[in-house]
């Protein structure tokens, strides 16, 4: 089955896609750091937020997609909103914090969805990110599709064998099998590596 949904927009074409990944990475880091380390006036945050929405649109990332991603944070916002109500802090503070997290989310999104993953890894390498970690990240990406395919097929097989809603017992065995299959896969990779010298 075809899956490329984890960075599905990175192969589109837009002015943003064309910007050098190094530049995008630096800009992203700058925004994230600035937002996280300093107190920023809410009005400025709104401006930055709207600007990033504009950049998202420019990069052809579907609106629905980036809006849903922003909402990933909502449980957190809900949690702190309750705290704020209890401690009687202002709505403005909640807005300020929310905007900050939205802004960083949009910045990461723009970086990752307009840069192919392997290019992103290369960029991190140029910034002296530890090679071993980059290797692990590449493995995660590379085998993500393989493993999710396996999970999907196993889930299909279970559905056909009459288990529509998976029980914890079944899922434990399924995950156990996934782990064992992953181990076997690693063994095969080792053998392949040996043969390649």
């Amino acid at each position, binding site marked *: 089955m*075809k899956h490329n949904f984890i960075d599905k927009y990175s192969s589109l074409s837009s002015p943003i896609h064309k910007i050098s990944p190094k530049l995008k990475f630096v800009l992203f880091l700058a925004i994230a750091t600035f937002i996280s380390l300093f107190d920023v006036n809410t009005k400025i945050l709104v401006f930055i937020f709207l600007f990033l929405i504009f950049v998202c649109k420019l990069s052809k990332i579907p609106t629905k997609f980036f809006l849903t991603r922003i909402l990933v944070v909502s449980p957190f916002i809900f949690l702190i909103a309750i705290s704020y109500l209890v401690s009687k802090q202002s709505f403005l503070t909640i807005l300020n914090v929310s905007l900050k997290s939205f802004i960083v989310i949009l910045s990461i999104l723009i970086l990752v969805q307009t840069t192919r993953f392997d290019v992103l890894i290369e960029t991190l390498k140029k910034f002296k990110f530890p090679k071993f970690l980059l290797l692990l990240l590449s493995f995660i990406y590379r085998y993500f599709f393989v493993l999710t395919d396996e999970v999907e097929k196993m889930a299909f097989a279970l559905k*056909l064998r009459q288990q*529509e809603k998976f029980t914890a017992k079944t899922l434990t065995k399924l995950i156990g*099998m996934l782990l064992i299959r992953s181990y076997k896969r690693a063994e095969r990779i080792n053998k392949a590596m040996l043969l390649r010298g």
Partner: protein
Amino acid sequence: MNEIVIEVKNLSYKYPDGKQALKNINFVIIEGQKIAFLGANGSGKTTLLFCLVGLLNYEGEIKIFGKDVKQNLKEIRKNIGFVFENPDDQLFNLTVYEDVAFSLKQQGYNEDEIRIKVKEVLEKLKLLGYEERQPYHLSYGEKKKVCLATALVNSPKILILDEPTSNLDPASTREFKEMIKNINTTQIIATHDIRFVKEVCDSLLILRNGEIFSFGDISLLENSEVLLSSRLM
């Protein structure tokens, strides 16, 4: 005897990434038919099989035993035995007995009924004595047989096999072939094995780029163009 078992009308399916996997699929399969699904890798064979059992959200209409697949999933699946290409996708229990008994357990049969049915199917497939063995540690050929057992234990009316002989050595292939021949259900077999097709099947459906290229009697294999496109040679 010649009742229509599977009826497919205007079936099409698009992958989540937008690529069209199947288009304009129309065909009918009658009871007792043993049809081979042929085609190159990526022509849509497995996708078509998954649509038939309602695992994918297809467009168009598929009726099995006269009932719409999407509306009657549970009932239809009780009567279909499906063997996946990779046995590791199907076997996940600690003993052969548990794996074969699994679908019966889900349907609520009691222990005694299960024991009888499992024994029956293991006997048929020459797997008696394997009950306590771990499926994970069996040879590839043995795993395939256990998968077949899990499919047959329900006494299905339709048997679907996805690449049943892929990676099997000649002896196991022969054994498997004999077993399949002796099973008297409607069968759909997706395969690349030309000898298997000639010996077991009475009809074929050839997929090319997600569309039906050819459909009909097994004698169509004689036609060389058909052979080339079915990528059996």
